[in-house]
């Protein structure tokens, strides 16, 4: 098929087997070089600020205030980290972020799977409508919920609790989870269910014995993708949480802005480095799974 397409343009007869790898090499090498350089440049733009952040956290305060920002630190110091831990309660913040992320993820996975199971496997008359309802949650911005939830929470005494963050974070992530699970459930062959049914398993048994164990990969995807957003949530935490004890990482970092907006930058950068480490480690270890998840999340949704 390829050989047939070829003779249409070249004036000379094309030999049936062109010199090895010629097709690749014939393209101007300039393009390849140029695109490599361009990619390198863009990657530097993406990564250098983060590297700079880390380097700055190791600088002495004076070096930072006077020196050339691109220069390597004149001396490395861990003092900034000591001050960072003195100023804020980073351990507490990380623990809180962890609690909120876990809580929201449990709801997202369990409820997402249940809803997808009801829609995709059990089936009911209004399933199309329910699917449509979930679509709304993907489109509308989270800010719509701030004022109403603030009012509702103060009515039922939920302000300033873990739940006040977990509920909207889980609610707004639920639609994507439902879609990912239902598109996965489509691939479980009908015969599997029929066989289980004949063996006497009811809808609950099938959910626990077949659907749940089979979807472990999708669970990983859903958890990884949502964790990025939940771990870093700022807006819900900032709106609903006041007490120091409940502050998550993004709020904790704000404590580093002192009175009159004065900031101890090197200590702040040290704090930033401490707080991004957990998620960064997870990301670097599991980046294959995470990348796959992000890709499938968008192409299926």
């Amino acid at each position, binding site marked *: 098929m390829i050989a047939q397409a070829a003779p249409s343009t070249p004036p000379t007869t094309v030999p049936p087997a062109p010199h090895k790898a010629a097709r690749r090499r014939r393209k101007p090498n300039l393009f390849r070089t140029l695109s490599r350089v361009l990619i390198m440049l863009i990657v530097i733009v*993406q990564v250098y600020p*983060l590297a700079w952040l880390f380097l700055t956290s190791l600088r002495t305060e004076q070096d930072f205030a006077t020196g*050339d920002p691109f220069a390597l630190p004149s001396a490395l110091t861990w003092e900034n980290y000591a001050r960072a831990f003195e100023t804020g309660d980073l351990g507490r913040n990380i623990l809180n972020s962890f609690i909120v992320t876990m809580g929201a993820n449990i709801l997202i996975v369990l409820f997402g799977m249940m*809803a997808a199971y009801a829609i995709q496997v059990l089936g009911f008359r209004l399933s199309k409508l329910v699917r449509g309802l979930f679509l709304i949650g993907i489109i509308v*911005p989270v800010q719509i919920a701030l004022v109403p939830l603030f009012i509702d929470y103060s009515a039922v005494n939920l302000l300033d609790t873990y739940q006040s963050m977990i509920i909207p974070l889980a609610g707004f992530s639920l639609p994507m989870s439902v879609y990912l699970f239902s598109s996965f459930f489509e691939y479980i062959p009908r015969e599997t269910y029929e066989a289980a049914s004949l063996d006497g398993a009811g809808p609950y048994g099938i959910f626990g014995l077949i659907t749940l164990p089979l979807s472990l990969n999708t669970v990983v995807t859903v958890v990884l993708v949502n964790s990025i957003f939940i771990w870093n949530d700022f807006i819900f935490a900032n709106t609903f949480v006041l007490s120091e004890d409940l502050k998550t990482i993004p709020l904790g970092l704000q404590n580093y802005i002192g009175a009159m907006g004065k900031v101890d930058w090197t200590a702040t*950068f040290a704090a930033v480095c401490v707080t991004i480490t957990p998620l960064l480690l997870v990301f670097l270890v599991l980046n294959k799974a995470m990348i796959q998840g992000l890709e499938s999340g968008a192409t299926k949704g």
Partner: protein
Amino acid sequence: MQPNRMLPNRSRTSVLVFLLPPLLLYCAAVLFPIFQSLFLSFFSWNGISDMEFVGLDNYVRMFVADDIFWRAFLNALIYLAICLVLQLGGALVVASLLTSLRRGRELIKTLYLLPAVISTVAIAFLFVRIYSIDPAGLLNQLLHWIGLGSLERPWLSDVNTVLAAVSAPEGWRFTGLYMLIIYAALIAVPKELEEAAVLDGASRWTLFTKIRFPYIRPVWITTTIMATTYGLRGFDIPYLMTNGGPGQSSELLTTYMYKTAFTSTDFGYASTISVFIVIECLVAVGLILFLLKRKAD
């Protein structure tokens, strides 16, 4: 019988058992607040005194009498445009270039995605320093070196540059995410199609516009919708870096709504603005589907 029913015998209760808990959570967190906002937008209320029904007054105020609203709306559109160019344009370029590489693709994907893992508060801190003038931040220092010293300025207090300056970090943050998605679509383009076109003498540009792009169009629509809805809900970075200032020069609808609600405690009017934001998102998604789908036919 339902076509999508896979289990031959399941009771109605079992459907409810599986469906109700997720639906309740979703209603409490998402659907009900939407209606509540709509309801509140017809009232004047500061959260303490009695609610007062004002009919369409809030809407009239918003459309007719509120200059800040229009300023914020315009800013939000510019913010969106900058984000879209950086995110989708950048993503498409990098994804295309990446397909021509033979080695190191995985590494570049990982590095490129790195900023997406960092919290917005950390990013705001970082960019405040990048834009800083005294001591010179990375950007001003770089301009100085390449001989564009005349452009050095305090990017965040200059009313002409502040909006672009708060938009760029958002673009920077998520371009990797969209790049991944587009890259995955690009490598799924059948090799035979591309090779046939190359043998026919198609240039790189024709190859891209005639073969690759049409093939990835569905994914492009999805990413455009994602980037647009995310751009329209952009809040954290402008709020943290400038809080809308100086003046209103980096005020977005979202930051304006937030301040109206939680600084001026004008819940009614804030709800009116958030209803507008929702409608804006729905219209944007509708427009994208209309424009991009129509071209495909």
